């Protein structure tokens, strides 16, 4: 590790210079967008420094003599020793003026008199001190994120996630943009992504955020509500990423959009109840269909058994009826045979049989036509006659 070698000479001077990005590096003209400031200092530097100072004090005390040394330093310090300290400080300052460190996640960009000169990979590198050369250390491998729409459903609020869909509805979207300094170079101009990022675009974070908002609203505006809420997430993410990349490339911003991640895509809070209602209705529908199926499964076997029984009974009845009919047909045929042999006798017999059958059950009064010339009149009313008959058992029946 390159920085451990610094422990020897340059601690006191270097500590300050490295820490506050403003020192000899001169961040001045870049403002806050400066990608990488100073790297982290090794944690043991302070400790080493303190120990060094302690040792210095001890040496001083020893040199100054025991009698008067306690209160005032310097009075009795030997000259060569002061010179040595001064040289040490000078060496430290010189070291930090002439060398710089590039961490693994950084890329060193060296500018000579403000003009891009060369870039250095991670490690310890030489440079001319300010103002001849300046170094920028953007974190090129770092993936950065920006969350958009955290304001959620607040109408007109800061960073609101509400946006119009193509079918005139409103949807509440929260998403995260993953981006980094582009590792590729621009094919049109030959500039690397880092150069573009540093020298071509001011306020990259704001730019990414604004481009993201614009792109998301454009994509959402071209879709309708339902696919956004359900199946269309993947496509939305890809479309937004593509659109953002296109816009940023147009700015030659040196920014690569790694991924868009939709965190939440919901109906606005005001109407989410209605959406839940739909879901509930869907569930209810499922439940009732299931219940109905269960009932069906219970009822069907019983009904099938009933049906079988009824069919069996019906078949029995059929057999019986057919047998009866067959018997009667046979009897009729026998009668017919008799009839053919002696039609008159048979007809007479059939007639009498029929008369007997028909008349045996009915109320009847039989009058002899020849007995009186007055006809039926004397006997009227006929039904009274019948009553009289019941009283006199010798009635004509």
């Amino acid at each position: 590790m390159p920085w451990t070698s610094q422990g020897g000479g340059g601690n006191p001077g270097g500590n300050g210079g490295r820490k506050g990005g403003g020192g000899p590096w001169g961040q001045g003209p870049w403002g806050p967008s400066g990608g990488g400031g100073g790297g982290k200092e090794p944690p043991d530097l302070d400790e080493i420094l303190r120990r060094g100072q302690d040792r210095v004090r001890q040496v001083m005390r020893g040199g100054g003599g025991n009698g008067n040394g306690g209160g005032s330093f310097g009075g009795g310090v030997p000259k060569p020793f002061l010179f040595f300290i001064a040289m040490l400080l000078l060496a430290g300052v010189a070291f930090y003026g002439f060398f710089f460190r590039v961490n693994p996640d950084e890329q060193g960009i060296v500018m000579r008199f403000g003009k891009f000169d060369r870039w250095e990979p991670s490690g310890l590198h030489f440079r001319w001190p300010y103002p001849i050369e300046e170094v920028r250390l953007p974190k090129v491998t770092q993936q950065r994120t920006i969350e958009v729409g955290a304001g959620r459903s607040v109408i007109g609020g800061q960073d609101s996630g509400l946006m119009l869909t193509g079918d005139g509805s409103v949807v509440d979207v929260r998403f995260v943009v993953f981006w980094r300094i582009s590792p590729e170079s621009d094919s049109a101009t030959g500039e690397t992504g880092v150069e573009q990022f540093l020298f071509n675009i001011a306020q990259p974070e704001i730019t990414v955020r604004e481009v993201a908002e614009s792109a998301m609203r454009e994509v959402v505006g071209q879709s309708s509500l339902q696919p956004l809420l359900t199946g269309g997430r993947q496509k939305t993410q890809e479309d937004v990423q593509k659109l953002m990349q296109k816009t940023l490339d147009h700015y030659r911003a040196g920014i690569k959009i790694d991924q868009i991640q939709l965190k939440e895509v919901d109906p606005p809070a005001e109407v989410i109840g209605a959406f839940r209602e739909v879901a509930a209705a869907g569930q209810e529908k499922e439940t009732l269909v299931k219940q109905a199926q269960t009932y069906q499964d219970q009822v069907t076997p019983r009904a099938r058994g009933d049906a079988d029984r009824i069919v069996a009974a019906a078949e029995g009845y059929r057999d019986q009826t057919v047998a009866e009919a067959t018997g009667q047909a046979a009897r009729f045929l026998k009668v017919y045979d008799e009839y053919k042999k002696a039609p008159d006798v048979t007809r007479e017999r059939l007639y009498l049989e029929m008369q007997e059958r028909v008349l045996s059950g009915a109320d009847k009064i039989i009058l002899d036509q020849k007995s009186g010339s007055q006809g039926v009149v004397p006997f009227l009313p006929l039904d009274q006659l019948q009553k009289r008959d019941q009283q006199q058992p010798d009635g004509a029946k």
Partner: protein
Amino acid sequence: MRAFFAFILTVLGLAALGLYASAFIVHQNEQALVLRFGNPQQAITTPGLKWKVPFIDTVEKFDKRILDLDTTEQEVTASDQQRLIVDAYARYRIIDQLKFYQNVRTEDRVREVVGPLIESEIRRVLGSATLQEVVKDKREALMKQIAAQVNKEGRDYGLEVVDVRIKRADLPKENLVKVYDRMRADRVREATELRAKRKATAFAPTPTRM
């Protein structure tokens, strides 16, 4: 001997002062305008160590990068009388330092001067389109149209407007409430439909297994 040292020191000091006064650095992301008693001498667009006449020339530096201009939110009436809250941003760079210096000088002034220009252009262009076109059908084309016009006007200020994009085009609060009502009605209809359908499904005779 002492006087000699003093002389040497003075000479060195003067040389350093001269160098300091006559050289200046233009960074990779900067451009500069050299003025001689306020009279523009040359515009420098390349980075590096540059020279000027000491104490006579002064240097004005400008950003060379693409800069940000965020417009304020404004209400726009589309051609179908629908109102929209529009928030847009522009990206520009300084291409004519002298014009820029004469007209606006600072980025803040750009926001004050060019911002309203963009806003009125947005009102004009979006006012001739319907809500549907703004949101869905012609968004890209409308933005291009705005950018082209603003770019033309921006030349007067020494600016090249790289892009104007609509960040938000949303409905104002009152209309949003109506949209919510409609969305709710839609959902209620859907729920009712589901409930009605489930009855139909549940009681329909199943012609299976016979």
